[in-house]
């Protein structure tokens, strides 16, 4: 029966592949996982970002004299495949820590794996609050400002608007649901006079924009919260522009100022939306200038937010490894908790209390300039200012 023979053969091949990789013992290895094939629009700039970071770190002498190597795997957008990749990185590549991931459910899957196998995991992109709070664990840290933080930043601006009748449009999955829930909660706390007149939940990636726009318009809101992004956002904006949905209405929108999502809109970019994002063209700080110059010199392209996330993920990982002086996960955790480091957005700290970094985001307004969408009047919001009090966080997070 040939079946089992092929089985064994395949196993041998995998085994041999694994051994070939683990031959070099001197390097410090980080295992990186992301949805490269599913979300290339975000992950390509992200990859460029971390490759730049690796280059810089090794040019500066590596980590305590050892060369840094990042081994990168694709998860295809599936939690189960991300775990297979994590397992390969830990068991046969012998990486010191795991890093990366984009989608929230994949971030959670890898974080659960890290907790079970006692491996350090630095989540780069997943926005879900659960990863540091309700499902947080001691092995998992997260870089990007969470859903809660971004909502709080937007609420600060949105609550100053006179609008009282609000409608929401969000993709129908956890990210959209929790973004709307947090926004509503914080907003209603600040403005008890607000009414929520309509909500639309198109399936992620499958918005039928015409009817959605029409339905929202029928509820006649004064302001709209949008959480859709990517291709859904394009369709929504196009239909909304043609049908005049945004005329005379305030719009507050998650992530729309990120070049990944703003640039495709080109001359159809709606003006005056309050958004979180990354206006790389108007940030004038020495830290960001240095990053921008290095990035443009290496790639001859401008950075997206993904570039920042990728760059800072590996920079943070290196800082943690350097301080720990070891690859022991317990020592890495001890080193990471409370560790401050520079970033292109200024100094950030990984909080001891919930392992969330204080990396912030830019909040500003969308505008049209030379037929392209840009963010104007933007200002940097420090992550630390938009987190709930320690007492509240303590209640949200299970004890380790």
């Amino acid at each position, binding site marked *: 029966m040939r079946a089992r023979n092929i089985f064994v053969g395949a196993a041998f091949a995998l085994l041999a592949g694994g051994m070939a990789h683990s031959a070099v013992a001197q390097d410090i290895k980080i295992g990186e996982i992301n949805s490269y094939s599913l979300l290339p629009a975000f992950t390509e700039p992200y990859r460029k970002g971390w490759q730049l970071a690796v280059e810089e770190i090794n040019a500066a002498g590596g980590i305590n004299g050892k060369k840094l190597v990042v081994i990168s795997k694709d998860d295809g957008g599936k939690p189960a495949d991300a775990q*297979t990749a994590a397992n390969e990185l830990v068991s046969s590549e012998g990486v010191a820590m795991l890093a990366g991931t984009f989608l929230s459910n994949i971030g959670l899957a890898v974080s659960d794996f890290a907790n*079970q196998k006692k491996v350090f995991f630095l989540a780069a992109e997943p926005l879900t609050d659960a990863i540091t709070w309700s499902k947080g664990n001691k092995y998992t840290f997260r870089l990007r400002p969470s859903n809660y933080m971004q909502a709080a930043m937007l609420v600060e601006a949105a609550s100053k608007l006179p609008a009282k009748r609000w409608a929401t449009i969000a993709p129908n999955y956890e990210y959209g649901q929790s973004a709307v829930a947090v926004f509503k909660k914080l907003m209603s706390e600040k403005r008890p006079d607000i009414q929520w007149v309509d909500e*639309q939940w198109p399936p992620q990636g*499958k918005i039928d924009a015409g009817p959605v726009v029409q339905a929202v318009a029928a509820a006649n809101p004064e302001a709209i919260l949008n959480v859709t992004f990517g291709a859904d956002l394009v369709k929504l904006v196009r239909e909304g522009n043609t049908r005049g949905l945004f005329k005379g209405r305030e719009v507050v929108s998650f992530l729309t100022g990120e070049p990944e999502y703003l640039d495709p809109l080109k001359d159809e970019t709606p003006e005056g939306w309050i958004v979180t994002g990354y206006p790389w063209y108007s940030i004038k700080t020495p830290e960001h200038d240095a990053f921008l110059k290095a990035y443009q010199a290496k790639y001859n392209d401008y950075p997206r937010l993904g570039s920042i996330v990728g760059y800072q993920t590996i920079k943070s990982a290196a800082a943690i490894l350097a301080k720990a002086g070891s690859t022991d996960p317990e020592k890495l955790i001890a080193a990471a908790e409370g560790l401050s480091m520079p970033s292109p957005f200024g100094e950030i700290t990984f909080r001891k209390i919930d392992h969330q970094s204080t990396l912030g985001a830019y909040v500003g307004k969308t505008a049209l300039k030379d037929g392209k969408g840009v963010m104007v009047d933007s200002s940097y919001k420090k992550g630390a200012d938009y987190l709930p009090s320690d007492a509240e966080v303590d209640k949200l997070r299970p004890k380790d």
Partner: protein
Amino acid sequence: MAFYVVQFLTGLASAASLFLVASGLSIIFGVTRIVNFAHGAFYMIGAYIAFTLTERLSGAFGFWGGIVAAALAVALIGVIVEMVLLRRIYHAPELFQLLATFGLTLMVEDLVVLVWGPDDLVGRRAPGFKGAVDFFGQNIPSYDLFLIVLGPVVLGILWLLFQRTRWGVLVRAATQDRDMVAALGVNQKWLFTSVFAVGVFLAALGGALQIPRDAVHHAMDLRIIVEVFVVVVIGGLGSIVGAFVAAVLVSELNAFGILIFPKISIILVFLVMAVVLIVRPWGLFGRPEAPARKTPGLTVNPWRPLTSNERLAALAALVIAATLPLFAGNYALTVGSEIAIFVIFAVSLHFLMSVGGLASFGHAAYFGLGAYGIAFLAKMAGLPMIVCLLLGPLLGCMGAAVFGFFAVQLSGVYFAMLTLAFAQIVWSIAFQWVSVTGGDNGILGVWPSSWAASPSHFYWLALGVATLVTVALRVMVFSPFGYALRATRDSLLRSEAIGIDAKRIQWTAFVIAGTTAGIGGALFAYLKGSVFPDNLGISLSVDALVMVLLGGVETVSGAVIGAIVYKALNIWLVSQTDLSKLVLGGFIVLIVVVFPKGIVGMLEMLAQRRRKSSPPGSPLLAKPIESAE
């Protein structure tokens, strides 16, 4: 009032886009019986090429010319695909063409990113249709009005084409009875090629016309393919008018449904399909398929149990597999466990498909139900692992019992699509019922007890269960029940004539397959330590189909090989290259061309030839050439 009129018109515009793509699929299926999974890929390429052309060419002529030129260019690609690839495999077992088009789809998804880059592309608006028309204070985009007119116009042209031309007469004849058309001396090759070209043209046109309202990106194909399949099936396969009515029905229900239930879009089309198929088993405008004239392929190479030598060989292979933990590392063992679990999953579908002749497109539902069963028992009831493993698959069993009852009332593609609808309904429940299932964030922390926690122990567990399941299903194939099931597959009429209660037998088979898949899912939950709605998703169902077809649907247990090859290759490629879809798709297409009966099916055929050509008493005969395990 004006609002409802506008909402209705908006729904019609969505329907028109859907109809263009669906009509092409319907025509292709009606004539060639190909389940063209690549239809979405052609739609996507149409949009990409149209984007490039409309950006390069200026003016109104450039825009509309670019749209039509793009559709024609893609139709040409379709012709090449049909002549080079599909022509070779029309005589392969049913659904095997699905495998070829699936491979193509995988390749295209990577290729468009290579050619056009990863960013979302937004094309320009249609000249002359940029603004909106005011209707009692409501705005209707003029492009929507254009689409609303275009839909019926295309329907009319197709109607004329089919009713008033000789080509149309031939196409309709072939839709009804293609053997008869061939017998009457019509050149089938060119008929099929031309039909395929027309279908692909419509798909690409549908994609190109999305440019003024959508973004062009590499996941467009998956977004539309399932939906158009559903539309085609609701309308009735091969019926253009049916596709049109179904597209309008689905789009209008969505447009008005979201006013009352804003979350309905995620499941609406599948609900409609499930209801329609239960009430009208052949869709709204479809007709019952004529009883198929079976080619004698299945009788030439009758199934037989393994000889005692083959059994020894199987046992030896099993022993070798069981010694893997002695020399392999943890990663290899975990991959081994995963492969063993997918062997369970694949043989369960194989049992339904090749023994029962019932191809399910939603088999992941029962796999996922088994996994969720474990998650509920372990996390909420806190039961020990052994108890969970015994009880968890029961959820898969119950799901299969309920859905199977309705599904086995249908046959062929309608059966497949009803199973898909049920799977999507289960998926959306897991996805939406956040308080119980955790929604798409899943249920975490379902790790095995300490006795099974080490990779080697878990591997032995998975291998042991996989072996038991494979053997048990084989025993069933050669039991009286198995013979009865095969009788219903080969000739429903004759089997009923000799007193076999076909529906009950098929229902039983469905429940057995579902429970077995549930066992796989239960182990999978423990292997991964978490359960997500993905475990019930379409892509997992497609994976299972691919494994069965790859192994060979006409074999007794080819799925074992199919699962091992596909899963091992998939894991390895994903780990080694970012272009894993391109390579895997290319591999599948190659397999389809080289092994049109699947891997095991082909090996069996070679063995058969060798046996026939070798002199009697040759030592070859005694050897376990057969690899149908």
